[in-house]
């Protein structure tokens, strides 16, 4: 059995977002790049499953669509413990384009995991699109994943609760927080080994994009906070009622 984790290369979550060229392009100056947090948790869980499988899960791979500048992020995934990696050497375009590229790699796997969204363009679409292109079942908002023999048991978050879902293989799991407690941090040995692990660079296949970004905007600046004295909480509540009309 083989697991593929789709990862994306995103700005560190503390990045101050800026745009350039007339707000048409994301300004990457000074940005630290990381594995998308949900993808990193998915990878961590995939590795835990492999280690606990007694050899049944023979391989965990990662795949990313992006140019050469994303390689440090892939190397980090290898250092964390992925066995090998694929990089489709192209600009990610849009979700449809990315899913089309990933499909070529994913079709050889039994389980494909994707993060529920990427913290940059936040479309929450690649995992779902990929499953449809593969004509595989998908389970989304997965917060726990167990595999025993051929049985897949998934905990899925729903509004106000959770469901336990089983799925046939192959399937796409779209994962969120909870799937693993903490992302794994690469150890020195892992970093050394990562250099020797295969990182396959693939040419993109011909595909189209269905959307494109015209430009970006920052939210309008907020007016300064109105401070109320700590001895006079009632004034705050009255403001909330009469001025803000919020209660």
């Amino acid at each position: 059995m083989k697991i593929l984790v789709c990862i994306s290369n995103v700005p560190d979550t503390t990045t101050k977002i800026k745009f350039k060229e007339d707000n048409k392009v994301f300004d990457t100056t000074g940005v630290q790049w990381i594995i998308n947090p949900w993808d990193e948790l998915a990878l961590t869980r995939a590795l835990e499953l492999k280690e606990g499988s007694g050899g049944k899960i023979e391989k965990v791979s990662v795949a990313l669509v992006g140019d050469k500048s994303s390689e440090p992020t892939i190397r980090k995934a290898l250092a964390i413990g992925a066995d090998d990696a694929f990089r489709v050497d192209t600009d990610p375009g849009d979700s449809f384009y990315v899913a089309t590229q990933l499909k070529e790699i994913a079709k050889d796997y039994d389980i494909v995991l994707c993060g529920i969204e990427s913290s940059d363009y936040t479309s929450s679409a690649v995992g779902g699109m990929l499953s449809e292109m593969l004509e595989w079942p998908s389970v989304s908002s997965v917060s726990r994943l167990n595999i025993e023999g051929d049985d897949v048991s998934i905990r899925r978050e729903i509004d106000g609760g959770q469901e336990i879902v089983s799925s046939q293989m192959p399937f796409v799991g779209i994962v969120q927080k909870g799937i693993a407690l903490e992302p794994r941090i690469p150890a020195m040995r892992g970093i050394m080994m990562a250099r020797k692990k295969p990182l396959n660079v693939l040419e993109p296949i011909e595909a189209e994009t269905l959307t494109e970004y015209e430009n970006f905007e920052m939210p309008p600046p907020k007016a300064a906070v109105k401070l109320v004295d700590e001895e006079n909480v009632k004034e705050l509540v009255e403001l909330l009622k009469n001025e803000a009309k919020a209660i």
Partner: protein
Amino acid sequence: MSVLVYTENWDGKFKKLSFELVSYAKAIADQLNTEAVAVSIGNVEEDELKKLGNYGAKKIFNVQDEKLKNLANQPYAKIIAQVAEKEDANVLVFANNFTGKAVAPRVSVKLKAGLAGGVIELPSSLDPFMVKRKVFTNKAFANIKIKSEKKVLTLFQNSFEIKETENAASIENFTPEFSDADFRTEVKEVNKVTGKILLTDAEIVVSGGRGMKSPEKWEPLEELAEVLGGATACSRPVSDEGWRPHEEHVGQTGKIIAPNLYIALGISGAIQHLGGVSSSKIIVAVNTDKDAPIFEAADYGIVGDVHKILPQFIEAVKEVKAEG
């Protein structure tokens, strides 16, 4: 041509979100000079279905089948795409919630329709089709162009005004085509919290951070939420510490919420936290540190100790409520 909206139900009922979605679909239909059509999957009574008409749905497709009781991404997407084809839908509207995110991308592939997730406004232009959506976990907006003939949108919650209209909807039972092979997932168990306001539905959310000091000190916060008729939430460190259940975690990697009123108690307001709550209409912050970043995002604030302020806060709300 038509605009198709998928209206999810919760135990056979619709809620505010459903009416927001229909209102949004109706407004796009008006722009396009066409009609809004809704599709409902699962067991919903006719009276409940009719409610969608009050917000502008001209026709409601009712899909009922014992097999479709629980969400299954693959057959749900198949059915919605079948209705879209039957009604020649140009634009499809979903919620940007768990279900919408699960189903919309699959439908988008079936129809080869470009998808814009988390849209917050009506399209600013129809040709080319341009719409504004949230990006960078709500820290910025993007104007996105959908180039395909068909479009799939997921609407960010609480971003469109609910509008009632004089309109009677017709209900049509729709028998989809699907086979057993479409059901490759199965729901074994459902665990739902009942009798509690859902965080994502709440108009008012009272949230606690590390400044609450310890899990035993949560009672006044819960009381404040109760007197306000709101839900409780927490920051990431609090859920990581296990002080509160992780379902309560709001922020970039937790739940993204957009209530009318968000009250942050003892939360410093790290950028990841703000990503999850910045869409709230009014933000109130209470924190001992006057330089805490939460005050930059807040509309109202008190610099002080939450535990000194909370009892007064609860009393003041009770008084103001009693005054009517």
